[in-house]
């Protein structure tokens, strides 16, 4: 017993070192990929690095409240995508997804035109992480709690 290490402890140490190396390599790869692996650009990215007009990009952000206007043809909508730092006007012709409403998230495929408007060929609605039933929408937390207590006590009677 010169080494003082049991074989299973040797194996454990070897595996821990190998796994640490693997995790380190992965973290480096993830760090290097952080821009390329993003699914879309936010308006702040577009403002910082304006893309060439005509270059295909994906733009994502929130639909600014009160910004949706429908053109006379009835199928072209214009709205503003914002992320709290920058705003990009967007124009889209086609069928809107059901979840496309003011104040919610949107991801648009398309390109910038010469006037700085983003012309989208495809719109995807982005769902946020909140799930709530229709009846509770727009209530404050206290109101919600009251409503739920009413429901619970009502059903038990």
């Amino acid at each position, binding site marked *: 017993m010169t080494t003082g290490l049991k074989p*299973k402890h040797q*194996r*454990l140490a070897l*595996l821990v070192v190998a*796994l640490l190396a*693997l*995790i380190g390599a*992965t973290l480096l790869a*993830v760090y290097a*990929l*952080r821009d390329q*692996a*993003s*699914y*879309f*650009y*936010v308006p702040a990215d577009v403002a910082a690095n304006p893309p060439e007009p005509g270059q295909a990009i994906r733009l*994502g952000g929130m639909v600014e409240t009160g910004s949706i206007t429908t053109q006379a043809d009835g199928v072209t909508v214009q709205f503003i995508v914002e992320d709290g730092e920058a705003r990009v006007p967007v124009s889209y012709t086609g069928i809107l*997804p*059901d*979840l496309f*409403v003011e104040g*919610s998230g949107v*991801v648009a495929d398309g390109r910038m035109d010469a006037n700085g408007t983003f012309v989208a060929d495809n*719109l*995807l*609605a*982005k*769902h*946020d*992480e*909140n*799930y*709530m*039933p*229709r*009846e*509770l*929408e727009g209530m404050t937390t206290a109101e919600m709690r009251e409503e*739920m207590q009413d429901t619970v006590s009502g059903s038990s009677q």
Partner: protein
Amino acid sequence: MHIYANPARFLRIAKWLTPLLLVSGLVLTGSALLWGFTQVPPDRLMGDTVRILFVHVPAAWLGMGGWTAIAVASLVELVWRHPLAAIAARATAVPGAVFAAICLATGSIWGRPTWGTWWVWDGRLTSMLVLLFLYFGYIALSSSLAREGQASRIAAIFGLVGAINVPIINRSVVWWNSLHQPPSITIGQSSIDPVFLWPLLAATIGFSLLFGGVVLARMRTILADIQAEARLRRKAQKADMNADLQSDGATA
């Protein structure tokens, strides 16, 4: 831990634990889904589409949990050489792959009405698809090694290396912009209304019990296979020996 590494003791426990897990899992999953599909109100934006949550989230959790279990079993196998660890890892792979596939399928069905697309190549969706392919690779590798009767150490290394994908799936919506929404449930808080959260938790526990039951049943099958094979081999050897004796007698 050594107590559970004894196959005979494991079989004694698994004999009653397997039906217990399967039955309680079926009952809990069934009632949670019934609750979620009929009693829960529709979501403010998604309407009835929200109900797919009760299958999608448990499936995602078990798809990732399955690989985590494979990784832990692989580590135990490589370091402590427990005889049951390799069998546990092999038994987990197929149910894990099934749940990863259910997660992708239900997510796609949910995505069509909600996002407006069946599939996008964003970080979350892509890394989940990679997990499904890792499962396929693991199943092919471990079952071919088992057929050849070789040591399962290569499969164990594959299980450990593949585990690096699990935290990537988990963090993908935080590290990168993605179409998939960020996590709704983080430690200690949830942005899912309690009306949806409770049936979701019940379904998750129910599916997990079912998963455990299936894994135990598969482990028992693999152990029975190994036993039957050993018995056949002994029989064949005995027959060979008898034949040798007889042929010796004939030549004499």
